[in-house]
């Protein structure tokens, strides 16, 4: 398979066909055809919302049956959320009662409306693992558990023998053919470089929400044209230096992707959906704007990455998580509304990732420390919603789900299974799943079932 860089070089050296008037005309016609055929449009997008710092899943959703809730309050102490504050929902499976955190007002509605689900106790694993195995140290476990940087990377890359690629990028490698002849990257991050987006054959695009998409300082004079040409030529000089080459490639990708996006966005009318004026709101708004021009970009499959940080709540957890969920919930709700406005609510699935969960047992500062398996949110019209997938851990320090004695849950669903469920729905064929998640065969069941 040839790389995007090679394709760009071919396009440049092949008489510039891709940028000729004919090429652009063909492009536009294709877009119009897609718009015409919208009712049967073949489009799907995944949106990853990464909660940096390690979100406390234990206070994101709480089981309300008496035994579980009593155990929860006893261990959590001052960090236990009062049942009166929790937003009640009933999971379809077993009609079990749960309560969402009080700031997740819209998520409660989406869950009740069947457009959101919870996947319980997901985390990084190399094989199914019991407490006995973990304590005996005779089973394979992920490296550097409880470390932010390592667990963020593992959530984004999964098992990566070759090194340097993320699971979103590898998924992009396998579906990018569906976007041909568009050369716009399948993966786009609105939160800077993200390890999840780097593929073997593909590399991600980035957008800074609100930032200009063209270089400033260039007019239309002959001198400006010559200067721009020189800038582009400097990026192609062979310096023999690996890091200079990387800087060149980064800039070439920026110029190429931004130019494509600028053209696609230029004719778009503003979305009527209002987004909250928060960092995550701006990121999700930018994603919605790109989805809006999917046909102009020629995209059938897209993966997006955005993030919200600050979840490392070693102190003052109750207030901090309140503030963060008060950003997360309305931003997600606005994004769902925007997908409805664009008519793609069944074609876009949004999901959370995070470093790890936090100890069920509190520390001395009204906070919690680094843990392992956590509960995650999946949102969208294609989600088999209103349900909690997987098994909730038993709230017992040193109990069967605890990796130690502070309530660090050994995951019962591997990231690989969670991701493969998303990737399968997205369009990665079953034969390609082991490329995206090489360690998937180590687990029973490649599909958790939360997407229909």
């Amino acid at each position, binding site marked *: 398979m040839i790389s995007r860089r090679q394709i760009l070089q071919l396009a440049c050296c092949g008489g510039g066909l891709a940028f000729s008037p004919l090429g652009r005309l063909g492009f536009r016609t294709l877009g119009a055809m897609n718009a015409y055929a919208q009712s049967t449009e073949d489009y799907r997008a995944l949106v990853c919302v990464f909660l940096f710092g390690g979100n406390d899943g234990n206070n994101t959703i709480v089981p309300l049956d008496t035994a579980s809730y009593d155990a929860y309050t006893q261990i959590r102490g001052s960090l236990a959320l009062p049942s009166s504050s929790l937003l009640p929902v009933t999971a379809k499976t077993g009609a079990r009662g749960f309560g969402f955190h009080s700031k997740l007002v819209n998520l409660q509605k989406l869950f009740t409306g069947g457009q959101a689900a919870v996947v319980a106790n997901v985390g990084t694993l190399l094989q199914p693992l019991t407490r006995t195995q973990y304590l005996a140290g005779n089973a394979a476990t992920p490296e550097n558990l409880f470390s932010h940087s390592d667990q963020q990377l593992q959530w984004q890359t999964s098992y990566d023998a070759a090194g340097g690629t993320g699971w979103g990028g590898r998924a992009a490698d396998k579906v990018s053919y569906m976007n041909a002849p568009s050369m716009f990257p399948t993966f786009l991050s609105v939160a800077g470089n993200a390890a999840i987006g780097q593929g073997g054959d593909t590399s991600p695009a980035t957008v800074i929400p609100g930032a200009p998409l063209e270089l400033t300082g260039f007019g239309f004079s002959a001198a400006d044209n010559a200067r721009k040409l020189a800038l582009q030529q400097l990026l192609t000089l062979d310096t023999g230096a690996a890091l200079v080459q990387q800087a060149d490639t980064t800039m070439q990708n920026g110029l190429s992707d*931004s130019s494509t996006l600028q053209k696609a966005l230029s004719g778009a009318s503003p979305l009527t959906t209002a987004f909250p004026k928060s960092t995550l709101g701006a990121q999700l708004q930018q994603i919605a704007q790109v989805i809006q021009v999917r046909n102009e970009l020629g995209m059938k499959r897209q993966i997006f990455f955005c993030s919200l940080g600050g979840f490392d709540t070693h102190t003052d957890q109750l207030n901090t998580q309140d503030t963060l969920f008060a950003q997360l919930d309305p931003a997600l709700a606005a994004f769902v509304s925007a997908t409805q406005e664009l008519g793609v609510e069944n074609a876009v699935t949004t999901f959370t990732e995070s470093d790890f969960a936090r100890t069920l047992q509190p520390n001395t500062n009204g906070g919690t420390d680094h843990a392992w398996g956590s509960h995650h949110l999946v949102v969208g019209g294609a989600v088999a919603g209103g349900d909690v997938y997987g098994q909730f851990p038993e709230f017992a320090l040193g109990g069967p789900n605890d990796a130690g004695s502070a309530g660090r849950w050994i995951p019962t669903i591997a990231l690989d299974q969670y991701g493969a469920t998303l990737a399968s729905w997205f369009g990665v064929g079953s034969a390609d799943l082991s490329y995206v998640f090489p360690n998937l065969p180590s687990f029973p069941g490649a599909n958790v079932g939360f997407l229909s």
Partner: protein
Amino acid sequence: MKLRLCCLSLLLAGACPLLPAQSPSPMTPGAAARFLDQSTWGATPADVAHLQAIGPSAWLGEQFAASPSPIPDVAVDARTLDPVREAFFTNATGGHDQLRQRVAFALSEIWVVSNVKLRAPAIPPYLRLLAADAFGNYFALMNDVTLSPAMGHYLDMVDNDKPAAGQEANENYARELNQLFTIGTVMLNPDGTIMLDGTGQPIPTYDASVVQAFARAFTGWTYAPPPGAESHKHNLKNWNAPMVAVESNHDEGTKTLLNGQTLPANQSAEEDLHGALENIFNHPNVGPFVCQQLIQHLVSSNPSPAYVQRVAAVFDNNGSGVRGDLQAVIRAILLDTEARAGDPPATPAANEGHLREPVLYLTGLLRGLGAAVSAANNLPQYTAIEGQPLYAPPSVFNYFSPGYRIAGGKLLGPEFQIQSPSVAMVRADLANTLVYGGIAGVQVDEAPFIALAANPGALLDHLSALLFHGQMPGDMNATIATAMAAAPDATSKAQAALYLAASSSQYQVER
């Protein structure tokens, strides 16, 4: 010839007993400029001449003796750190303690605190601590940061209480002190490569129980009381004095630390803290772990294991039996044969160098182009939009990770973590603003460049000396000359050359 080469390397190692210091031929201007790009905020013609005159060993001695540039305080209720950020740029462009500033900044990206969580007045005393300790001993740095109220608040060691039943001690500082500031998560060989066990697996340096033991060792510290006032279990915030112990709030149990070493029961908070820091400081990982990162910040993202090992050996023993001597470490980093091998007229190896992070990119241009920077300036916003808001990284993991790999997964390129395709364009726009627009509080005198514009060869040679160690590649020179030829007048010719040189990848990657 052989003798001279031998003695040159001895001189570079700071110990040439046979000849007076100036006998070998002095550094070329290009070699001096390259040395200064690794040890200052960017080479200037004056510094190049001075370094040529006295040689690198004497220059290092001068720099070790230079007193720290002033870092202003902000008011107790200040809502912004901007005056401190603006002062960073006046110090970086005009301060004489260039090496101290570079090393202190590198340390601030290892021992990270952030204005994202800390209020503004907490930051200046912490920056002064790093500047003061930059040329001291690593153990003193560990001790001073551990007791600093800024770090205490940032990673929750302040008011970390003795755990009651049903609680654990707060692990935040205990974990990151080990993982990020001293030893890392896995055992290292003396050359910084990962040590493997008999089955080919990395060996963890600690487990969850060790982290909790350190957390308990660090209980019982609070802010210093105001002068003359009584101390309480939890004192009010005080950013200007080290934290103080509250023995009644210290966990007195036995703690089992790294390598199975224990702190006995019933020690005081001070005794436990000192013992815990000694336990870490003497771990064999500290030298390779810290030295590799310092090399990455100053010289190259991908030092050879042998280079790391040579510097780490100096960390372990400065030659006089002292462990952790940072002056000896910095000397070893900058004078190492691998650091100097690429000095002109030689060319750097293919994988040599590192991407200039936004701060270094901006200061390098300002100094190279001879910009005058006022006390009040708008410079801080230009690193922020490139993903490096000064003193406000997103987390304790800094703006970028020392382990970040560029596409392909083979080579490290920490600074590339924040150099997204979009940020690369922002960088070119910054070059545009600097050359064509102007930044408030910054004066770039373009007259000398305009005066040379009629002779593109002369202008490009001048730029090559200022920004490229005299090694601007020939094809780059020709490409810029073509753009200059299309520009209508001397000003636009000079500006085209400045813009293209400043925005080029060849400049952005310091080799």
